[in-house]
């Protein structure tokens, strides 16, 4: 394995940080198995692998959150130990997690220097002018122009990420580990982030970058390390591989990235008709039609009102005007009414909106079907268990059993549980809001195969996605949103990434 690593080492011979033979075991699971990994100064090192491949574990070993069971660390060639977060920080390793660790009610400067505030003249006070000046200097270093006294609460995701990076830089971080940093960013914000990464690279900062997006891997990466089942599969340069080869390394077999669909020749009857819908959340005059057997895309930039449309149809946000006709009847009211009529919402954030993370897989699978499974109102644990077991088999949810806590499953399997609860409820219209966010490629294909099967059996799907490729591959047709309104409709033969982008762009 070490020979493969040598083959792609850059000209600088001594890595900034090198890990050799790292292993980490949990009861019943070998999270990391003899993984070697080197980061050179000023490089972007892409870390690839499906969920559960060991990326998170490796990241946690790097930042001192986990202690490796075996293996050695070398910093600039010298043996070192990383046993705690403090050790990692001393070596200049900083991690930008997907869930930010900022304090929402404090301002940017306070967040950057949290716990390291410059002391004022009176003991116990903070030197306000110095903290602001220091913050301005750090923000200037990463080219982020903003008033450091802005409260973090008021910032968008992209700006909060900038603050996290500024915080890391202020701690003299030389190795920045970023976990799917673009997952919640718009295209424009992603560009800004890439520009910042280039700037950090030029300053000699190394970046370990975890991603599920193939385009990023090739756009940014100097080197790529692929993990699978806790093992390091290979280390390659982007120039030497194709996306298909990388996917094969990740999943250990060929995966068709085109998500084949059985497009119906003629769609069924109209299931959902939205007429002139407006809601207090900023969407107005929305007209949408979804027929049985169709997967209809809902695209547009992040913030264009896609999720708001989904929530308004489901009754989660109050509608101010317009009409929703479902299965021939005008509907209104709370989500429980929509759910009972056969509408399912698979929300964008499955952890906070889709699942009760501390409850079991089984509890989560039957929660929407209680009324249907137990019309008498009496709950029967064995019947619930049987239903859950059936769904686990049908959806191939990887869990030791229905009693497993759902929060312990991987992202893809959690998403299957969210979908599963609506299968149990017998829903007819499935509204998917970013169904593949944070899910690895193999599980994505499974989710799409599942959606295809659902509509083939007479259901209908409305799918929101920021992945235009996915919309183009999977949808029968799509609506594109812009600034809270439907900007246009694309039929199957017009459905291209260019058309989606063209319709979704802001025209100044």
């Amino acid at each position, binding site marked *: 394995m070490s020979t493969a690593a040598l083959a792609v080492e850059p000209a600088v011979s001594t890595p900034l940080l090198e890990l050799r033979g790292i292993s980490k075991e949990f009861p019943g699971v070998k999270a990391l198995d003899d993984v070697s990994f080197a980061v050179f100064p000023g490089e972007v090192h892409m870390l690839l692998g499906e969920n559960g491949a060991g990326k998170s574990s490796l990241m946690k070993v790097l930042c001192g959150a986990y202690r490796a069971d075996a293996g050695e660390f070398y910093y600039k060639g010298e043996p070192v130990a990383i046993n705690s977060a403090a050790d990692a920080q001393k070596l200049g390793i900083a991690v930008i997690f997907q869930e930010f660790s900022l304090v929402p009610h404090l301002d940017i400067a306070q967040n950057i220097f949290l716990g390291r505030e410059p002391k004022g003249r009176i003991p116990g006070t903070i030197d306000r002018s110095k903290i602001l000046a220091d913050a301005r200097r750090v923000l200037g270093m990463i080219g982020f122009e903003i008033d450091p006294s802005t409260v973090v609460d008021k910032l968008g995701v992209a700006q909060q990420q900038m603050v996290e990076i500024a915080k890391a830089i202020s701690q003299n971080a030389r190795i920045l580990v970023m976990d799917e940093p673009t997952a919640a960013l718009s295209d424009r914000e992603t560009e800004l982030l890439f520009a910042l990464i280039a700037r950090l690279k030029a300053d000699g900062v190394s970046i370990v970058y975890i991603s599920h997006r193939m385009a990023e891997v090739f756009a940014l990466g100097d080197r790529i390390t692929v993990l699978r089942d806790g093992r390091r599969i290979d280390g390659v340069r982007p120039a030497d591989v194709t996306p298909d080869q990388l996917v094969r390394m990740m999943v250990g077999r060929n995966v068709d990235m085109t998500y084949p669909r059985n497009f119906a020749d003629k769609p069924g009857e109209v299931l959902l008709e939205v007429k002139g819908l407006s809601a207090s959340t900023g969407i107005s005059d929305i007209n949408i039609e979804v027929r049985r057997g169709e997967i209809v895309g809902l695209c547009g930039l992040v913030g264009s009102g896609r999720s708001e449309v989904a929530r308004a149809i489901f009754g989660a946000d109050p509608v101010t005007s317009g009409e929703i006709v479902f299965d021939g009847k005008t509907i209104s009211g709370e*989500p429980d009414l929509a759910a009972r009529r056969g509408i399912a919402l698979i929300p964008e954030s499955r952890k906070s909106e889709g699942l009760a993370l501390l409850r079991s897989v089984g509890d989560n699978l039957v929660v929407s079907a209680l009324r249907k499974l137990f019309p008498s109102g009496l709950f029967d644990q064995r019947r619930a268990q049987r239903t859950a077991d059936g769904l686990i088999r049908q959806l191939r949810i990887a869990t030791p059993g229905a009693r497993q806590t759902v929060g312990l499953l991987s992202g893809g399997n959690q998403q299957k549980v969210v979908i599963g609860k609506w299968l149990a409820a017998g829903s007819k219209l499935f509204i998917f809001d970013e169904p593949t966010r944070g899910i690895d490629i193999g599980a994505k294909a499974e989710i799409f195969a599942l959606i295809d099967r659902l509509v083939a059996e007479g259901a209908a799907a409305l799918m929101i996605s920021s992945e235009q490729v996915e919309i183009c591959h999977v949808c029968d047709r799509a609506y594109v949103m812009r600034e809270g309104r439907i900007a246009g409709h694309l039929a199957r033969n017009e459905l291209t990434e260019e058309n989606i982008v063209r319709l979704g762009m802001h025209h100044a």
Partner: protein
Amino acid sequence: MTDISKEAVAPPRSFLSQDAIQLFYRLLAALLICAVLAVLSDSFLSLGNILNVLRQASLTFFIASGLTLVVLTAGLDLSVGANVALSACIAGTVIHKTGSPALGILTGLACGGIVGLLNGIMVTALRIPSFIATYGMLWVLNGLTYWYMAGETLHGFPAGFRQIGSGYLFGLPIPVYLLLVFLGIGTLFAQRTIWGQEIYAIGANPVAARLSGIPVARRLLLVYAVSGTMAGLASIIFLSRLNSAEADIGESLTLPAIAAVLIGGTSLFGGVGTVFGTFIGALILTLVLNGMNLLSVSANWQPLVTGIIVILAVWLDVKTRRRAQ
């Protein structure tokens, strides 16, 4: 496609078995306290004393059982004690004025239920955090009761009515029968109905529960109404047992009820706990106080001991659950 699903997963565990373990520990603790008291005090194991413990535990349990459902939804009802006082005073007045215990009982239950419903409306329609809504309600109810009673004491009720709190049937106090009945109903409701399941789901994640099609607001209304009605029931038992009612009888009831819920293993964060646990919590609380009385320990120490038990019980829960995670 099957091998995609081969992902690292930890060994199976569930809250069901975890709940069972927590209950087992609690039963063990209750038995341990019994054993210690049996050794230290000759009179502890007498039938009279044991029945007395059960009867005292029953009053705490009635209030705490309804409260358990509220806490399962990650809410809190601080108005239960004040609710008992108002309901008892109104029920007592009705019995005095009409001479009909049945009418009095219905009034007491209705008064408790209406107060609970008002709590529910504040929490759902007005979106006031339950802690604050019911804390405000506590003061409102106290104010109403003091104004209504104007320092008077209601005293002397029909013998038949007094049987509810102090009578015996086949050698067991009637409140003990009621305790068993409501323990059964409470457990069945929480574990064996879809409403119970929905309450657990709401407590575990209210946003996900709403987006899963659970009528969250209606269930919360129900839960607060049940909590209030159980306070109404407790007021009847109280009235019938003491044969009198004053405005201040509720003041010493709320905190022990919360203690019983917490000692019983119901999490203030919602979604975790059982009605049976609350019963054992009420039992442990009563046993300790009873033991202190038998051993002639000054009553001044009782709050201190209660506090220590609550902290200990919750700490052990947190510790064992964290290890299970």
